[in-house]
């Protein structure tokens, strides 16, 4: 069985401070892992993906995530938050060409 747990439903950070969005997964297979971002009234945009290559994955807009198999985690980080980062973030596990979403983390950036 596959599942994704996003540990925080809401995260607030001040502009210029680090961002950490946490994700744990379970999968019967060696999955691919993704982070997507969804801005209000916009479609889902891929931030980054892990596909069994390097465990530290760099994505767009300064985001990166580290795959830790022993902890079954795939946390998303960014060194310095920008106002434009305010959005909903989804962690996704993908075994065998299916995509399972977490419940999402809403990121608020305080000026």
């Amino acid at each position, binding site marked *: 069985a596959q599942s994704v747990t996003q540990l925080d439903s809401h995260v607030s950070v001040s502009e210029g401070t680090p961002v950490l969005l946490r994700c744990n997964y379970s999968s019967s297979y060696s999955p*691919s892992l*993704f982070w997507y971002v969804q801005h209000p009234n916009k479609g*889902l945009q*891929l931030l980054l993906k892990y596909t069994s290559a390097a465990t530290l994955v760099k994505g767009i807009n300064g985001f990166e995530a580290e795959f830790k198999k022993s902890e079954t985690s795939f946390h998303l980080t960014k060194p310095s938050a920008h106002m434009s980062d305010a959005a909903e973030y989804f962690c996704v596990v*993908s075994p065998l*060409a299916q*995509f399972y979403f977490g419940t999402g983390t809403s990121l608020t950036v305080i000026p």
Partner: protein
Amino acid sequence: EAGVAQSPRYKIIEKRQSVAFWCNPISGHATLYWYQQILGQGPKLLIQFQNNGVVDDSQLPKDRFSAERLKGVDSTLKIQPAKLEDSAVYLCASSSRDVRGNTEAFFGQGTRLTVV
């Protein structure tokens, strides 16, 4: 490359009416997905097609929802009759495998359905 196209973008209907959504995937993508995203939740897979065959429809409420992909390209999702709890954004996605066998899903803008 053109993205996943969906229409309409918005739809408001009364309960017990029927509604249909259309999706045109990225050219060459064999796999097509329909997801339902209820406000405040993550997208939930409704149905997955591989070409014109159904791979997984275990989460599709088959008493009221139907989907088809007759020619293995574009797809239609229908709800008949609609209920209030069907109010959601319906997302279409398509995917293909890269040379390493990895799959990435590309999502459309979605159709926001409001049932009143």
